[in-house]
């Protein structure tokens, strides 16, 4: 089964323009809030209409602006899991599932029983959604989607409204569900960790455009664009200029750095992850600079130190340095020299 999406739609402050294929896999769309991820899902589901383009699933055309095809959401058979699960509040668990099932009475009942069992909802059949826990609601929503015989699953930020403990529980349940009922799945999130744990391929979205589509390992190693770098959790990004094949100037930090990899001509940014700074004893190591502390923030299990090069002036952007509590507490704070390991610099073209 495969989903082909190639659409444009003018939105308030940017134009959504996405082009991607999803095969039998869990495909993630990673992007900041309001980048057009949810709108893309709504266009695929038929809730919103794109201005132009083509959507096809399983060789069935769902939308085509040139041929004026625009199937109703009811005819698309796409399972859409909403952030708040969107159960029908006036119906019990059983009625919610029954309402989505198709066929004659006996067939419907069979579908309902099967899905109640499948999702361990026995004993909750007559409960109303308001009296269910988050996990039970999620399972009911899944049961409902499978009762409607959806072939494609779309998950829209399924955990973003939850506290971290519950979120973890639900994520475990979800990953188990996805493994058991292998269906083409489209997962939308702004959380890099969720995406990394649940998905195989990732599309990074920014301002309505897909910047990168790549395998997750490749993406986290080499994010390629500034937006992708930030979304993969890199806290330090600076404008950069190439000096020669292995030297560059990071203008935001006012640092000249050497880089092991060959620097491309069109280099515009570099990124550097906050926990890769190395403490040096001697100031003459490669990419070493004397460090000036701007702020110290105590986090749950680490310290976050906002720093600048002591040689830079105060207009330089601070860098974020993270280290474990012990390392920070045991550190002599008289004169700190830090280095940026040559191989850890992320080179970004745009």
């Amino acid at each position, binding site marked *: 089964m495969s989903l082909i999406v190639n659409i444009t739609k003018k939105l308030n402050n940017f134009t959504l323009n996405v082009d991607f294929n999803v095969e039998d896999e869990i495909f993630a769309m990673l992007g900041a809030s309001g980048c057009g991820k949810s709108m893309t899902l709504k266009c695929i589901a038929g809730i919103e209409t794109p201005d132009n383009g083509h959507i096809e699933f399983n060789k069935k055309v769902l939308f085509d602006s040139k041929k004026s095809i625009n199937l109703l*959401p009811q005819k698309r058979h796409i399972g859409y899991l909403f952030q708040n699960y969107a159960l029908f509040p006036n119906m019990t668990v059983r009625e919610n599932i029954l309402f989505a099932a198709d066929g004659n009475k006996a067939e419907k009942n069979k579908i309902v029983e099967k899905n109640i069992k499948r999702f361990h909802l026995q004993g909750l059949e007559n409960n109303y959604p308001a009296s269910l826990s988050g996990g039970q609601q999620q399972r009911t929503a899944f049961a409902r989607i499978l009762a*409607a015989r959806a072939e494609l699953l779309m998950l829209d930020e399924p955990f973003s409204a939850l506290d971290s403990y519950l979120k973890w529980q639900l994520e475990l349940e979800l990953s188990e569900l996805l493994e058991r009922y292998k269906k083409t799945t489209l997962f939308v999130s702004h959380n890099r960790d969720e995406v990394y744990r649940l998905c195989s391929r990732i599309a990074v979205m920014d301002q309505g455009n897909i910047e990168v589509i790549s395998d997750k390992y490749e993406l986290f190693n080499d994010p390629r664009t500034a937006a992708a770098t930030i979304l993969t959790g890199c806290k330090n990004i600076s404008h950069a200029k190439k000096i020669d094949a292995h030297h560059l100037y990071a203008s935001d930090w006012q640092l000249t750095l050497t880089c092991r990899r060959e620097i491309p001509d069109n280099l515009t940014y570099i990124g550097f992850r906050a926990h890769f700074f190395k403490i040096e004893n001697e100031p003459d190591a490669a990419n070493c600079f004397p460090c000036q502390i701007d702020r110290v923030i105590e986090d749950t299990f680490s310290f976050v130190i906002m720093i600048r090069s002591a040689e830079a002036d105060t207009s330089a952007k601070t860098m974020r340095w993270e280290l474990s509590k012990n390392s920070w507490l045991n550190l002599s704070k008289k004169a700190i020299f830090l280095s940026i390991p040559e191989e850890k610099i992320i080179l970004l073209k745009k």
Partner: protein
Amino acid sequence: MIDYYPLFISVKTSCIATIIAFFTGIYAAYIIVKIKRFKGILDAILTLPLVLPPTVVGFLLLIAFGKNSIIGQLLLKMGYSLVFSWEATVLAAVVVSFPLMYRTTRGAFEQIDKNIIYAAQTLGISEWKIFWHIMLPNTRHGLIAGVILTFTRALGEFGATIMVAGNIPKVTQTISTAIYSAVQAGDNTAAVFWVGIIISFSFIVIVLMNFWLKYNEDSKMKVPAGNGG
């Protein structure tokens, strides 16, 4: 001796007007919530009777249904005249009270979490079933409130009624117009009687509605917290 015709006429008129406004109001609200274009203009037209002076509404109805209008001519050919008939009291009550039903219903429809409707659509459920099994049951508080407001407004209708239906005893004289006649004739006893009736009637209906809504507050059909993004 007070005759009770105005009470019967008022109650009969209000009941029928409420039934008509109930269906048309819900239908109008459903359409307005769905459409994307001309929403503001259509809403303004539908709400206008609520804010215009009732005499203006009455005047417009006279123009629309009077003997010189197209509709009036048509009705006349069928041997029927709407103006100054009992049906005219219903017409006036419907037009004036309709916006209350429409507005309350629309508000209730808009309160429904959109994701619930979207979810139903993606699950393959027809629009008709969504309307009957999801939209109506989840807005019943709003609908009941709308019915009560519509009924009490229809009951209290005066201005438009007196212009299109007149104030004919035993035919079109409602409680409101009866009070007007009583005061003009200096019959204070009758005026006080009818004023008392209409105040107690409206008061009881609204108090009952409030009790009912409060009783239903803790019902099982609460909408789950959180909304889509």
